[in-house]
């Protein structure tokens, strides 16, 4: 067990960070609306109710064990000795925030920031597995995500763990860079979403007998677009708080973060609009919303260290990537993801992490973890690739295994007999729009 030197924040940064934290829940609200709007009306009430349960369970799981696992630079952690180096692999803090001071220190701000992030991250798998994932199983899976999967990777990247120390110990740039959570929140949650979708399977009627996907349109495009725009407002706080806490930015420096975040989202939305317009003859609303969110996700990793023009490029590539990825998952892999969550968060997040390695340029004195030993820019791309290899090679099998195991004890999928009437009626006993909607699909033989 050991501790790193505790990082210090620039003057006024604590108060600024608290203000940014107030914006972060808007991302969760936006994602809940997006998930609901992109699903069918027969599951709308269930998606919103599940979103509230997810936020509750995630916060409690993070309180119980999450922060103990995640920790923060300067807090105790467990070190594994291998290859002549110490590998800081897991936090060693007390459970339930015992003996922890909420005094505006970087560690206490990181705890509050991460508690908000874990909730919005846990909403992401719901977007992919909506309409057939049982509420009890959602709560169980969220507890695993909030108490173990998210905090472990967050420790490695944000808590002074071995990924963050790749620069100081192995000379790889400034270590793994992800100031706003492209990887810690979005890729981890996106890979969890893929695991859950593979475990629960596709919605009934999604694939016809010749294995071609049937279009199941979003029930409320206004919810979807409003949710995506609400995400943008929250993302400004998310990326700014992350830049202060994990990038060592002064409050004034977050102006660049705000500009980069907005430009990345804008270019991603436009690129998705153009890509779908060229491909289908008309722009597609749901894919545009997903592209926009994909741009926000991609902006997070390097938002403090890139130029505005580079943010436009990163966003535009994310928008196109997300659009084609949604189609690829649906047609080639037979993955039924009504919210496009896997593409927007896992694919968009991995591109963001990679883009940070390609585009990020650092001030000479930059080394947030250890100011006495500045890193160099060479090897930054390698550090980012190691982060991606860890996400795919460790986080994905871990989250798949945990969800697969949980599914053995707490079945994930709703009963097939009750599925046609909708998960709202089956699990909640009431629909979101009982007086206005007729489910015509139930009477069509497939």
């Amino acid at each position, binding site marked *: 067990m050991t501790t790193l030197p505790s990082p210090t924040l620039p003057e006024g940064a604590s108060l600024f960070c608290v203000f940014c934290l107030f914006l972060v829940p808007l991302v969760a609200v936006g994602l809940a609306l997006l998930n609901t709007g992109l699903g069918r009306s027969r599951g709308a009430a269930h998606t919103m109710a599940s979103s509230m349960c997810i936020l509750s369970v995630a916060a409690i799981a993070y309180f119980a064990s999450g922060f103990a696992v995640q920790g923060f630079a300067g807090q105790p952690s467990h070190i594994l000795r291998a*290859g002549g180096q110490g590998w800081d692999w897991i936090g060693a803090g007390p459970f339930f925030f015992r003996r922890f001071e909420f005094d505006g220190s970087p560690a206490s701000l990181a705890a509050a920031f991460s508690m908000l992030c874990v909730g919005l991250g846990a909403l992401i798998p719901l977007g992919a597995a909506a309409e057939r994932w049982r509420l009890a199983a959602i709560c169980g899976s969220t507890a695993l995500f909030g108490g173990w999967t998210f905090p472990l990777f967050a420790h490695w990247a944000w808590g002074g763990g071995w990924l963050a120390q790749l620069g100081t110990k192995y000379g790889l740039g400034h270590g793994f860079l992800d100031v706003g959570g492209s990887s810690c929140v979005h890729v981890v949650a996106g890979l969890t979403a893929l695991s859950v979708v593979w475990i629960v399977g596709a919605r009934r009627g999604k694939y016809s007998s010749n294995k071609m996907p049937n279009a199941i349109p979003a029930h409320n495009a206004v919810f979807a677009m409003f949710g995506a725009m609400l995400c943008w407002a929250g993302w400004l706080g998310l990326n700014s708080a992350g830049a202060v806490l994990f990038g060592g930015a002064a409050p004034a420096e977050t102006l660049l973060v705000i500009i980069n975040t907005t430009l990345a989202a804008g270019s991603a939305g436009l690129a998705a609009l153009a890509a779908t317009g060229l491909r289908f003859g008309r722009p597609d609303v749901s894919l545009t919303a997903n592209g926009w969110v994909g741009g926000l996700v991609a902006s997070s990793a390097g938002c403090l260290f890139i130029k505005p023009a580079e943010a436009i490029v990163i966003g535009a590539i994310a928008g196109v990537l997300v659009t084609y990825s949604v189609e690829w998952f649906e047609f080639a*892999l037979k993955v039924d993801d009504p919210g496009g969550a896997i593409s927007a968060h896992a694919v968009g997040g991995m591109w963001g992490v990679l883009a940070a390695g390609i585009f990020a340029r650092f001030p000479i004195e930059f080394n947030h973890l250890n100011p006495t030993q500045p890193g160099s820019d060479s090897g930054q791309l390698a550090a980012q690739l190691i982060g991606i*290899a860890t996400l*795919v090679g460790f986080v*994905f099998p871990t989250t798949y295994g945990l969800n697969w195991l949980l599914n053995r004890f707490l079945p994930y999928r709703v009963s097939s007999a009750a599925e046609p009437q909708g998960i709202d009626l089956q699990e909640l006993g009431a629909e979101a729009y009982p007086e206005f909607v007729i489910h015509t699909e139930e009477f069509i033989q497939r």
Partner: protein
Amino acid sequence: MFLLSTMDFQGTFAMKLVGFFLLISGWLIVLATLALLASLNLRLIFLIAGLAIEMVGVVLVARSHLVLEDEAG
């Protein structure tokens, strides 16, 4: 028929297991690269090799789920 479907299931399950094994193996190669090699270029080569192994693992896991989805109809 039952025996055949059981064998199919075991084959799919084995494909998935091998896929996950390759995913973890690729990651361990990346970690070993950090510990054993000093040159950035060498590290990059082995890092890409580790990622390539992970990609093969992803393909196998995806294929196993594709087979299961087809069987489920």
